[in-house]
C-alpha cells in the first residue's frame, strides 16, 4: 500500500522533473533507481538505498552507471506457467542481483 503510494509520488515527480533540467549524474536516474528499488526490495531498505543514492548524486561523486543491487531468492516457475517479465536479474553473488527493468 505504502509502496504503491511512494511509487506514484516518484512517478509524479518524474513527470515534472524536466522542469529542473537534466540534473541526475547517474544512469538510471535517482527517481528511476528509487522505483526499481521499491519494486524489488524491502520498503525500508529501498527507502534507505534511494536516500543514499540521492546523497551521492552531487559533484563530489563520479556518477555514471549504477544499477540497484538487491538480495533475492528466486523461486521456481511451474511448468507451462506464463509469466510477464518485468525485470532482468543479473546474478553477481549468491542471491545478489543487479536489477534492470525490461525495456519495452
Amino acid at each position, binding site marked *: 500500500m505504502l509502496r504503491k503510494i511512494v511509487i506514484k509520488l516518484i512517478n509524479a515527480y518524474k513527470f515534472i522533473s524536466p522542469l529542473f533540467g537534466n*540534473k541526475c549524474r547517474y544512469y538510471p536516474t535517482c527517481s528511476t533507481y528509487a522505483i526499481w528499488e521499491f519494486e524489488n526490495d524491502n520498503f525500508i531498505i529501498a527507502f534507505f538505498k534511494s536516500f543514499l543514492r540521492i546523497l551521492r*548524486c*552531487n559533484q563530489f561523486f563520479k556518477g555514471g552507471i549504477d544499477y540497484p543491487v538487491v538480495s533475492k531468492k528466486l523461486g521456481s516457475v511451474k511448468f507451462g506457467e506464463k509469466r510477464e517479465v518485468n525485470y532482468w536479474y543479473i546474478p553477481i553473488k549468491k542471491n545478489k542481483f543487479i536489477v534492470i527493468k525490461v525495456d519495452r
Partner: protein
Amino acid sequence: MNNKDNLRRIIIATAISFIFFFAYDFFVLQPSIKNAPIKKNETKEVKTTKSTLKQEIVATIEAKNYEVKIDELGRINSFILKQNKFNENGKHLELIPPKLPKPLEVRFENKELNKKAFSTKVSVDKSYIKLSGTKKTLTITQNLGDEVVKKTVTFYPNGRYDVKVILTKPTIYYISPGYRPNVAVDSLTIHGALIKKADGTLEIIEDGDAKVENINNAIVTAGFDRYYTTLFFSKTPFEAIVTPDDNKNPILFIKSDKNLNLIGYIGPKYVDTLRSIDSELVDVVQYGVGTFFARNLFLVLDFLYKLVGNWGVAIILLVILVRLLLFPLTFRGMVSMYKLKELAPKMKQIQERYKNDPQKLQMHMMKLYKDHNVNPLGGCLPLLLQIPIFYGIYKLLLYSIELKGAHFLWIKDLSEMDPYFILPVLMGITMYIHQKLTPTNFQDPMQEKVFKFLPVIFTIMMATFPAGLVLYWTTNNILSILQQWIINKVMEGKKLLKAKK
C-alpha cells in the same frame, strides 16, 4: 585523492546531520501525548462558577505598547496591543477573548470557598499605573473570611508580568494563564496549548483534542493561536492541569496549595521578546511539522534581517547564501564543462545514433562520461536541498509574527499573497526563460506538452501563496538563469576557440 576522501567525509557528515535534524524533529519534538500521565480520578474538572458580579474594572495599567484592565475578581479582563502593527480596522487588538478563564483567574477545589471567591470583590492598592521604562507592581487582595488571597503582580514594559500568589492558609487552588488568544485562528495553522516539562519535552495539545490531564513537572504552560500567546512560566516545576471545554479546546491551569511565584506573558510570539524573558520560552513559537528546521532557519533569516532591515531583502540574501553554500558543487560542474567540450564529437555521434531512444541515449552518454572521467550534471542532491529551505520559509511566513506586515517594494505584507500578481507573473517569466536555457530531453511527447505549460500552471498555483515564498522562488530562478547563461557563454567561448584552431 586524500583531499577527495576528506570532501566525501564532509558530505557524509552533512548528510548524517540532516538525517539527525529530521529524526530529532520527528521523534523528540513531536508532541508526546501518549506518554503523558492521565490521572482522571485525581483532578475533577475545574468547574466554572457563575459570578454574581458585573466584572467592573478596578485597575488599569498603561504601557507604551499595551493596556491592561483588571476586573473585580482580580483577573486580567482586557489586554490591548497599542502598536500600529496590531491595528485592525482602526481598532486595537484585544488578546483576551470573552471565554473563561481569564488570566490570573483563581479557582478553589473547595466548593464553598470557590463560590465565595466568585462573589467577592477584590481590593487593589492602585487603580491606575502608568508604565514608563521600568516595571511597576500592583497588589490585588481578595478577602474570603478565613482565607485571604493576595496576588502581587509586577508589570514589565515588554508584556511580561510576575505574579506572586500568597495564601493565609494552605488550600488547593487553580490559577490560569487564561484562555488562548482568539485573534488569529484558522484551519491552516496549529492553535491550542503547549506544555513544556522540566526535562525539555514538549506536549502540544491542539484545539479539539483536549482531555483531562495532569502534568507534574511542567515549567511552561501556554495557550497560543497563530501569532499570540498567553503563558505562565516558572523555573521551579509546577503541576499543570489541562481540561477540555465544550469544543474540546484545552483550558490551562496550574494546581497548587502553596504560595506560588510565576512569570507570565501575554502578547505576540516575538522570538526576541520571549528569549529575553527566558530562553526556555522560545519553544512557545511552534511552526507545526518541521518546527526544529523552521526555528533554525528563522535564526538565519533574522540575522540577515538585522543586517539590512527589510525582510524582503533578507529573503533575497538567504537565496544568495544558499547558492553560495552550494557553489563548490556548482563550480566543480563548471570545470567539468570545460573538459566535456573535447568530447563533443563523440557526444554528437551518440546523439545521432540514439535519437529516438532517450533511455539508451542517456545510458550511453553516462558511459561516455564515466570512460572519460567527466560528468557535467549537477546532481539531484543540490536540487533536493532546496526543498526543506523552501518549506521552512513557507512555515516562517505562516507562523512568524515578525514577518507579518513585512513590506517589500510594492508588497505590503510578505506573508500574504501579492495583491497585484506582479511577483507570480515575474516568477512564471523567469521560469520560462530558465526552461529555454536548460537543455532537456523528454521520454514522451505528452510530457513535453505539459512541460511547456508548467510556467503558466505554476504562476496560477503560486498566485495565492505568500508573496515572500514567490519572492524566494523568483530570486532563485533569476540566479539559475544567470548561472546557466554563464555556463552557456563558457561553452560557446570554447567552441569558438576550437573553431579558430
